[in-house]
């Protein structure tokens, strides 16, 4: 394989990885606080894609982006309020089943509202502009994605490490009940977590769908699961871990496709997951947790 092709695929992989990383952050934050695999997260990402299609149909992109961002955040918080909040004290299996139920509902709702046929994702000006550097050509979005991901991660990390809300989030993820006793408004913290997760899912969907160009009701399922794997790979609960995991999966997957094993690109993700769970269940950056009896 020539170096140009390698570079080209590497660039695609990094870009895909950036989008995965942004979605994986949503998983890792929710898991860190609620100990819940938010199966609906991938579908929030899919819905954000649809929102964007309809917003762009009637308004320019600079108006559409903030509106859709808000809609996605509202959707994320609403799901938490309706489907997860009533089950706070229920066994973990129930919350997980509820999450699967929400995912099923969102997919069916999308099929009903927007039909099962793939819809074209609108082109946002500037993002699709093709840049050429030597023999390598890439659209602007491919180049922006990794940088945007890194910037957003830094912003998020400083939010978590240096603000009151961030401190509350860390406290809740360490010990749910004690932080409640310390006067932290748990529900507010959880809502904030879902809001941030959905916001990043929206940005992820913007970057992901601009490259893929179509949205259909099930286009959130597999990316969703992969991003959860990315979160586990990096160490669940750790934000830098999720970002690194996202990049590893994105690059690995693209390389497999480049080598001609595209049928195995999904299997690769899960194979990594299983290997990781066996040898280092806490992930690359995870803290060691001891089970309390």
């Amino acid at each position: 394989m020539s170096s140009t092709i390698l570079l080209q695929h590497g660039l695609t992989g990094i870009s895909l990885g950036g989008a995965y990383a942004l979605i994986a952050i949503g998983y890792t934050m929710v898991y860190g606080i609620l100990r819940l695999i938010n199966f609906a997260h991938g579908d929030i990402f899919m819905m954000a894609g649809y929102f964007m299609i309809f917003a762009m149909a009637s308004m320019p992109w600079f108006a559409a982006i903030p509106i859709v961002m808000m809609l996605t955040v509202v959707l994320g918080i609403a799901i938490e309020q309706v489907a997860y909040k009533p089950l706070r004290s229920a066994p973990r299996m129930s919350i997980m089943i509820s999450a699967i139920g929400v995912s099923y509902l969102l997919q069916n709702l999308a099929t009903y509202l927007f039909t099962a046929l793939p819809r074209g994702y609108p082109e946002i000006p500037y993002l699709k502009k093709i840049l050429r550097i030597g023999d390598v050509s890439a659209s602007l979005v491919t180049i922006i994605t990794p940088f945007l991901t890194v910037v957003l991660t830094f912003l998020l990390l400083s939010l978590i490490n240096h603000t009151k809300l961030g401190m509350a989030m860390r406290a809740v993820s360490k010990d749910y009940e004690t932080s409640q006793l310390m006067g932290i408004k748990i529900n507010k913290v959880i809502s904030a977590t879902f809001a941030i997760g959905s916001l990043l899912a929206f940005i992820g969907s913007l970057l992901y769908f601009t490259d893929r160009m179509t949205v259909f009701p099930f286009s959130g399922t597999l990316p969703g699961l992969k991003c959860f794997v990315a979160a586990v790979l990096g160490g669940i609960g750790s934000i830098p871990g999720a970002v690194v995991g996202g990049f590893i999966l994105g690059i690995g997957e693209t390389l497999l496709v480049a080598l001609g094993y595209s049928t195995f690109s999904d299997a690769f993700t899960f194979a990594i997951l299983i290997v990781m769970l066996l040898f280092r269940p806490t992930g690359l950056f995870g803290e060691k947790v001891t089970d309390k009896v």
Partner: protein
Amino acid sequence: MKTLDKKTTYALSAGLLAIAVLILFYMDQNRAAYNYPLSILQRSAIYAVAAVAMNLLTGFTGLFSLGQAGFMAIGAYTVAVLTIPVSARPSVYYISGIADPLAEATAPLWVALLIGGLLAALLGFLIGYPVLRLKSDYLAIATLGFSEIIRAFIAAPMLNRVTNGSYGLKSIPGFPSTLMVFLIAGLCIFLMVLVIRSSYGRAFQAIREDEIAAESMGIGLFKHKQMAFVISCFFTGISGGMLAVFMRSIDSKTFQIALTYDILLIVVLGGIGSVTGSVLGSFLMTAGREWLRFFDNPLVIGGFQVPLFRTGFRMVIFSLILMAVVLYYRKGLMGTREFSWNGMYAFAQKHVLKRNKTPIPAESDTEDSATSERGCSK
């Protein structure tokens, strides 16, 4: 509370069974007229096997596995490869031909089902070694991952000569009669009930309640988890094989995560930890999808077209109902109880017959469920 004696309950069960067999036999004889209800019934029976197998794992052993679709795929492809008539094979494998050892390999349906189940069980045994050491949601996501890997292998071009890759397999001979579907499904569920009621089944339930307590009572955790997983995989494989025979053509897309979710939602609807609940759930869910079909057609009342009714609305309603069950009726239809004639009798006495006008004390509620639970353990 007065209970029915054993003779009456046996008579009632035999009566119900006889009626069911007669109805099925009648419908089978007039297959042309009852094609649609028969196909719903067959699908329900097949899903019931898969749901009870999942319940054995999730409800009775407390292992939340989401790998059902993968194991069903193993069973389905085994049965398909072994039962497609040799004469039809060249037209099925028209792309790259069939692998030489399989070209002449055929087996009668029941042998093929058994082999499918055994292969799924073998795979479950191998996967179980690494995966069963994981806890709750990690186990779920790892089994989900395995099911996707199995699907990827089935669709892989390297296995074209066995699974026909992404083209799928067709011309699978269907079931000769609905009665046969019910017979196989009934046998499978009966065997699983025997397992649940055996001493092994008790051990599974002990593990579900408290792993540490179970271990300290001398129950080998890993051995029993492995056993539950392998048994569940075996029957999941058989149900997959039955699904292949029912659908008559399969491809790797049949066994997507959505299939696992369907089975999971049946188990949840019926009640996690109730065999009869799962059976009831699978019939209700499969039939419910068809009953709700009128939501998909435009509805016109007095010249006014009701706006919401169009394609896809049915599934929205359906998922809303399921969400309502998950959120507000977490126990599902049956909770952890089982159907028993005594329970029915007690229920009828309390709600329909209203024989004893004296106010029933509050404890009678728990007493009721206790009697019905005892009814199941006998």
